[in-house]
């Protein structure tokens, strides 16, 4: 690899470079300004993120194999880059106000968010086990810190420690799986593994099978699939709410991007064996997530369990194992980021600080006292439950119809039943908002700043517009998934 090709490769990582530079800038600028002005970092970071978004529009569609096959820029990578950057942007808008309320306004908060996003982008574009692993680590380590960022609050530290310990084990599994795959195939690149799997009988190769299984255990942990979901409720509940919103959107999308790429590029031949395993995991994930969410009285924890269930729905798309399923999964991941961040934003506004928790009791009578907040929350919950005309409905429709076309009737039935059950706990919040009398002690929502208002606006418009006009995003997802199926 000579200088010329390195310079060409740089074009493939423009958004990563912009985010890294912004992160370093925030860290340095933090030293120069007095403590009370630190909210400005959210603005600086947002400018960086928007620049990165524009750079994706600029270079994003060109296909570049960069850094001697370590990473590739293609439409697939650009799709997930957009998902991650949009989630990051919304999170930054929420964090500015939240950090003031909770007294954790720090430059490092934003720098860590940006660095973590760089990891996500790397993961979404990675075409080599080495870059997948490094991207995952760069994604995870700042998130561990961000979960425990509110050090004075016990639940935050508890969540961070649990996430860190389990995450370290999961990393071990993932790396072990990669090492075994390398031992079996002699390649770390996805295409190298695919070439081996195409030539040899992998079903007799114990090293290969064990490596694959361990690899998917590691991934399963990151996207919190059952039975590797144990960390999710505590980490989500303990984390500062904007971080929780971000965790449920960005990292999940990035990890799914890596899973899809690995499935499509590295294991096209051994699909049936893998898909059977994923079938069981998908059914379990949807069921356990939804059943646990049914009994939660804390809205933040309820959304944590529901995010497990949603990972299960996305997995249904992957089990379909064709273009349609992949396309539906990608559409759903994008839409899910919008509606989930929106829901977390309202939850954040209606709480009385992290110490007092997010009990569903807080929502009593909110719908009439604060009509806008109530209406927006209803939109997000309806979309999460998968009811038309919202984007959540379109997403689930495509996911399940892809599964039906593949003949996965039983899995679809399980999914639809789960989706119906989930409507119960989503609408329960709506019932509290509109049909129960107000509490004696009045809930005062936090003052809605410009950033939060803008984030809510983007999320709402996205959820409704993508529900009514899904074509544009769907065709973007289609061309993205084609870009890796054909390569």
């Amino acid at each position, binding site marked *: 690899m000579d200088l010329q090709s390195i310079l060409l490769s740089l074009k493939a990582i423009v958004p990563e470079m912009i985010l890294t530079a912004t992160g370093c800038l925030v860290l340095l600028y933090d030293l120069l300004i007095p403590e009370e002005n630190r909210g400005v970092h959210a603005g600086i970071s947002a400018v960086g993120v928007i620049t990165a978004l524009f750079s994706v529009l600029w270079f994003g569609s060109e296909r570049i194999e960069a850094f001697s096959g*370590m990473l590739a820029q293609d439409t697939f990578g650009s799709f997930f880059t957009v998902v991650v950057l949009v989630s990051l942007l919304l999170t930054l808008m929420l964090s500015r106000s939240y950090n003031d309320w909770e007294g954790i306004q720090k430059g490092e908060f934003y720098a860590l968010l940006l*660095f973590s996003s760089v990891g996500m982008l790397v993961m979404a574009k990675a075409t080599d086990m080495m*870059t997948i692993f490094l991207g995952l*680590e*760069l994604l995870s*380590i*700042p998130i561990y*810190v961000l979960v425990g960022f509110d050090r004075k609050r016990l639940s935050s530290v508890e969540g961070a420690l649990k996430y860190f310990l389990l995450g370290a084990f999961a990393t071990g599994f993932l790396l072990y799986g990669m090492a075994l795959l390398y031992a079996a195939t002699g390649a770390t690149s996805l295409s190298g593994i695919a070439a081996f799997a195409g030539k040899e009988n992998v079903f007799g190769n114990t090293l290969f099978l064990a490596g694959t299984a361990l690899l998917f255990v590691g991934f399963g942990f990151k996207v919190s699939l059952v039975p590797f979901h144990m960390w999710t409720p505590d980490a989500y509940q303990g984390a500062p709410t904007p971080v929780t919103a971000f965790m449920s959107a960005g990292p999940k999308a990035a990890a799914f991007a890596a899973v899809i790429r690995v499935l499509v590029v590295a294991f096209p031949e051994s699909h049936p064996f893998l898909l059977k395993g994923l079938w069981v995991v998908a059914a379990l994930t949807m069921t356990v997530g939804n059943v646990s969410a049914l009994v939660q009285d804390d809205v933040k924890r309820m959304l944590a369990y529901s995010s497990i269930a949603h990972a299960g729905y996305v997995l249904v798309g992957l089990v379909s194992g064709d273009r349609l399923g992949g396309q539906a999964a990608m559409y759903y991941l994008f839409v899910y980021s919008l509606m989930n961040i929106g829901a977390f934003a309202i939850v954040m506004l209606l709480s009385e600080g992290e110490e007092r928790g997010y009990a569903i009791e807080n929502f009593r009578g909110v719908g009439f006292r604060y009509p806008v907040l109530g209406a927006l929350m209803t939109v997000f919950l309806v979309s999460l439950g998968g009811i038309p005309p919202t984007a959540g409905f379109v997403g689930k429709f495509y996911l399940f119809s892809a599964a039906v076309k593949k003949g996965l009737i039983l899995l679809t039935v399980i999914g639809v039943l789960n989706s119906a059950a989930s409507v119960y706990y989503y609408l329960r919040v709506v019932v509290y908002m509109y049909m129960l009398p107000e509490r004696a002690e009045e809930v005062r929502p936090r003052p809605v700043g410009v950033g939060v208002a803008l984030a809510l606006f983007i999320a709402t418009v996205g959820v409704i517009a993508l529900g009514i006009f899904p074509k544009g995003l769907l065709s973007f997802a289609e061309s993205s998934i084609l870009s890796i199926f054909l390569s």
Partner: protein
Amino acid sequence: MERILFFIFGFVAVFGSIMVVSRRHPISSVMYLLLTLFSVAALFVLRKSHFIAAIQIIVYAGAVVVLIVFVIMLLNVAESKIPVERPTLAQGVGVVAAGLLMLEGALVGSRYGAQIEKAVDVGTVEAVGKALFTSYLLPFEITSLLLLAAIVGSIVLARKKF
């Protein structure tokens, strides 16, 4: 010549590691550990893995051993306070298991030794440096960012004033 050097350094390494576990004073244990690490580094040089040899000395001898010495000196353990242990059955089993493991290593080595012989010139500083800054440039750079994020994160979590 190479063979003679191998036996000399191999012997010193084994001698050093036996002395590490058998000395009563921790400081002399550490000094023998240093001896072992240096002779292992010499073995790496014999295998033309210059890079690993240098790293072995810089990281293990330079950083880790110094850290161990610091801890021992901070704890300030008097020699008389260190209890003398009687050998137990578990320790006996451990010695046997270690012996079997060594035997297995020797067998594997004798079987695949010829293949390992071929691997030359990839371990020199030049080869490693070239690989790091061409084919593996991106992973190298991501690692640097990962370390930066980890440093920032640990400072955030550990500093006194918030």
